[in-house]
């Protein structure tokens, strides 16, 4: 059975009550800044860890995606093999094996490429008069080729001095990256559950602290929705503030780590850095934090307030 409300509640009243609840929530929080900030920092750390992991996993994914197009086998020929023989061998290999391309490369070009890598520039300069490098053949295997098998066959060829094949290492790194992504999702899920539990508990304590007030308000006709509203704002503000501080923490961590990451990338001839958050992702994260807080507060409020009178 429904009772007509004594007053028709129009949207402007509804907005007024929401604004009033929000103002009262902010006022209450401002009276206990240390308690509020310590809870927010706890939430922020729980949010920041998955954010940092996400940033790192994203960077590694970028690297391995780039390497996917670079998988190739390099054959270093014996010093006595001239460029014409190298070209002939490249053509023969392309006909005999499952490879997309085989290109011989002049040893002077190899030295030039070598000298472009910053850490070898000085060494390459000393070799300019007497180049110790051999001609090489760069092989782009076919899509489904068994790279280890191919590398083994090339190694037995009499003109080949050495086979360089790094793809297995890349595959391992790719597997690690994929595992990291999964771990990141699992940790993210666990930490979001942790945030929800933190907010549920904090809101429950807040409700317990204001039990007498809630009883009085309900006795004079307040609905559960009216009573819950300040607690929902409280939860949303905890989540929102936690997400904002977590973003700052993650961004600060990225700035601190970026130099080390750039050095690491240079070692692997990669070109990547820890990505900054876009404005869309920042807004999404802040809204997500607020929604998580709202959701957690709603759980706590539903459990507690319904049991009061």
């Amino acid at each position, binding site marked *: *059975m*429904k*009772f*007509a*409300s*004594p*007053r*028709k*509640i129009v949207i402007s*009243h*509804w907005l*007024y*009550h929401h604004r*009033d609840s929000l103002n009262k929530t902010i006022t209450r929080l401002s009276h206990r800044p240390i308690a509020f900030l310590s809870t927010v920092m706890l939430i922020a750390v729980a949010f920041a860890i998955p954010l940092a992991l996400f940033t790192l996993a994203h960077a590694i994914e970028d690297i391995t995606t780039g390497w996917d197009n670079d998988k190739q086998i390099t054959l270093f020929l014996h010093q006595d093999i001239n460029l014409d023989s190298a070209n002939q061998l490249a053509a023969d290999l392309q006909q005999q094996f499952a490879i997309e391309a085989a290109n011989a490369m002049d040893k002077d070009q190899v030295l030039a490429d070598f000298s472009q890598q910053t850490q070898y520039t000085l060494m390459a300069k000393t070799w300019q008069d007497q180049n110790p490098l051999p001609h090489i053949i760069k092989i782009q295997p076919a899509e489904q080729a068994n790279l280890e098998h191919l590398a083994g066959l090339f190694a037995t060829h009499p003109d080949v001095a050495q086979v360089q094949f790094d793809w297995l290492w890349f595959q391992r790194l790719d597997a690690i990256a994929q595992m990291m992504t999964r771990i990141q999702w699992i940790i993210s899920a666990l930490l979001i559950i942790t945030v929800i539990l933190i907010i549920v508990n904090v809101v429950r304590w807040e409700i317990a602290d204001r039990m007498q*007030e809630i*009883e*009085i*308000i*309900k*006795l*004079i*006709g*307040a*609905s*559960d*929705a*009216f009573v819950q509203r300040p607690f929902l704002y409280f939860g949303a503000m905890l989540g929102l503030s936690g997400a904002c501080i977590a973003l700052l923490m993650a961004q600060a961590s990225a700035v601190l780590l970026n130099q080390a990451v750039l050095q690491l990338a240079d070692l692997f001839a990669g070109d990547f850095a820890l990505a900054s958050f876009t404005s869309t992702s920042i807004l999404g994260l802040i809204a997500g934090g607020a929604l998580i807080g709202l959701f957690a507060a709603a759980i706590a409020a539903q459990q507690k307030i*319904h049991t009061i*009178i």
Partner: protein
Amino acid sequence: MIRLQNVSKRYPDSGEAISQINLQIDYGELLFLTGPSGSGKSTLLKIIALITAPTRGLLYFDERNVTHLGRNSIAQYRSRMGLVFQDHRLLNDRTVYENVALPLRINGFRRQEIPGRVRAALDKVSLLHKEKSLPMALSGGEQQRVGIARAIVHKPILLLADEPTGNLDPQLSGEIMNLFMQFNQVGVATLIASHDINLIQSYHKRTLQLTAGRLRDAAVDGQVTAVSS
């Protein structure tokens, strides 16, 4: 307006608080409910306010059965009433003004209307000058008057008062009772539970007597008459 039909309430640990109560309260009526401590006065008021549900029997509001309303409907039902408690039940961290404004906020009154209505209610209980005070800074009688202002500020159709003079001296009790009489004169139905039979008899109004959970007698203009089974 309010009708109780064979209403009983049994608490698990203390037995039957009220038994087979039949009662009708009409619009604009004022009646007293009296009886010794533990006779069931507060339980009866709680059932009418739907603070607790009867174990047996039915409660009607304007001939609609409201015994087992949903939570939102209970809030709407209660918002038609004004409740006054012996211990005032004021929010101690809010000013007198904010306490009295609370029912208006709950009932969705326009923001612009609230100050005028609050001040009018405070004026009726002669506490306009205390609107910025906190309840703890007021005397017991003043706190009770704030509680009454809060109960009448949204113009309820029924005022329920549970021992409203319980902690007050005779002079203040008389002042509080006079306030209830004034509100009743403008049409607010009023049910006042009190154990102070001398105070009640001086007002010559319909009086219900609860004894050991049974509504046995009634006095109208001081005369005792039977009203229920």
